[in-house]
């Protein structure tokens, strides 16, 4: 488990991460979602003890990372796929990591096989494609067979095959009971993998809730109505308990009253309707609204 409390990072006058409180639980894929520059990578570097928090703290299995002696057995991370020495072979890169944590050498062959790089194990990684480098980075994360895995934008630059492979891998890691935190700036991608979401924008936590809940609460159906007498209709819909927004073009956006009920009301009160249409907002829109408006939605923190 990963736990952050009031986690804050300032670089000079710029605040990259601001007062994050969250827990990443085992047995599920947690999507760490936010636009570019939201502070995802900074948070991951603080989890790994690479950047020091300006205030607050973050722990891995209840301990600070900097105090761990053999961390790769507990947590594995892919931060940047290109962070390898181009002249070193994939095998030797992993061998040096394994040696640093007392991991037996045969694990190197196992993870190379697992990520599909066994055939190029002895090739210099400078010649690897981005997709191959991502696989090598994931092999490094899996090396110590850790219970916690951190992936920073792992699908960037991958082809569809690679994306599918990573998605399947993350799901199976979580199914094995591991804690999986994976960052992305794309809702569409995250929605396919994550069970739980941590959404951040401008360094602040905007949402911490199951994916289903975000869909339920934010991708709700709304109805678009164009009526000749939209002011009167708006008032009548409000008395029905609807939440009504009047757009500048005169269209009413109604939440909380179904289209059938609106049609019946309009008929009963003699309204002339020019349009009555269900609008289903996508998750992408929900995400956009979250991060754009910086509205803070929070699921109750589990005790």
């Amino acid at each position, binding site marked *: 488990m990963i736990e952050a409390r009031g986690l804050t990072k300032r670089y000079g006058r710029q605040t990259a991460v601001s007062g994050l409180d969250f827990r990443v639980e085992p047995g599920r894929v947690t999507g760490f979602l936010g636009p570019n520059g939201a502070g995802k990578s900074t948070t991951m570097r603080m989890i790994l003890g690479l950047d020091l928090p300006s205030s607050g703290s973050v722990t891995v299995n209840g301990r600070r990372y900097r105090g761990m002696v053999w961390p790769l057995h507990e947590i594995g991370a892919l*931060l940047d796929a290109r962070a390898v020495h181009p002249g*070193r072979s994939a095998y030797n890169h992993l061998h040096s990591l394994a040696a640093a944590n007392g991991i037996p050498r045969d694990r190197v062959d196992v993870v190379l096989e697992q990520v599909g790089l066994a055939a190029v194990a002895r090739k210099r990684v400078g010649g690897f494609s981005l997709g191959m480098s991502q696989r090598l980075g994931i092999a490094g994360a899996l090396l110590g067979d850790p219970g916690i895995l951190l992936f920073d934008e792992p699908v960037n630059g991958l082809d569809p095959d690679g994306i599918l492979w990573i998605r399947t891998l993350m799901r199976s890691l979580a199914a094995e009971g591991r804690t999986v935190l994976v960052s992305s700036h794309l809702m569409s991608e995250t929605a396919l993998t994550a069970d739980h979401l941590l959404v951040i924008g401008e360094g602040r936590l905007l949402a911490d809730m199951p994916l289903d809940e975000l869909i339920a609460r934010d991708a709700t159906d709304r109805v678009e109505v164009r009526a000749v007498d939209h002011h009167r209709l708006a008032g009548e819909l409000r008395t029905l308990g609807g939440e009504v927004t009047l757009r500048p073009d005169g269209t009413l956006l109604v939440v909380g009253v179904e289209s059938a009920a609106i049609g019946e009301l309009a008929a009963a009160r003699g309204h002339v309707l020019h349009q009555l249409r269900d609008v289903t907002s996508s998750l992408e829109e929900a995400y956009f609204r979250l991060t754009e408006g910086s509205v803070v939605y929070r699921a109750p923190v589990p005790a």
Partner: protein
Amino acid sequence: MNAHLVRTAAEGRRHGPRARLRATARSEWVKLWSVRSAPAVLGATAVVIVLGALVLCSGYRSGWASMSASERAAFDPASTSLRGIEPAQLFVGALGVLAVTGEYGTGLIRTTLAATPQRAQVLVVKGLVLGAVVWAVTTASSFGAFALGQHLLTGPVPHAELEDPGVLRAVLGGGLYLTLIALFGTALGALSRSTPLGLAALFGVLLVLPLMVGLLPSGLADGILPYLPGEAGSQVWHVMPPSPHSLGPWQGFSLFALDVVVSAGAVLTLTRKRDV
């Protein structure tokens, strides 16, 4: 899930601070030998040291007749055969700088420190592993250069024997001096975290600084020059002091060692708080 809960046999290898140190050393050893640059630069260093003896000692043999009496009196056959150290120091120093800045440049340092959060240990062990290898290669090369050089100094040109006073110390001093240079480079690399900056600092201290001091009025220059790191450290591979102002061999070497310790201390103090 089960796999990472099961205690493996390897777990036994992971107990205590000595196991941690051994693991760090093993990792750095693998890293050192798994890229081409280290073996290539070490090979070039050995060649330069031995080649220096070949060129200089055959040069003195043919030029001896035209040398003045005072030049002859100041001739130091042992250190002449070791003067390949002067170009070689740039190689091993750069190797030290690059051992650290190479990891910062690629971002590999994050992977390294995520695997071993004991930052001071990583940097110290990295320096010591490189230092040990540099010591072995350059000590062997110094003996090779000395043997070749003395073999070439024949006829009227005096030559040195290992048994002569100070000679064994000078030959061993070649390896010791170059080892300290490699450690100095490592420290400068860790301070600068940048290849161009680290190399500029190293070459600045070893090459540019003595030239600049040399431009000062000679009284002032004589007072400063012997204390510069390269100049002070080099006394350990000389039998006859190159100038009347030179420090003694161990005195100079200790001063240089102190410079290295101070820069390493700066690295270790800063590294705890710096983000990577």
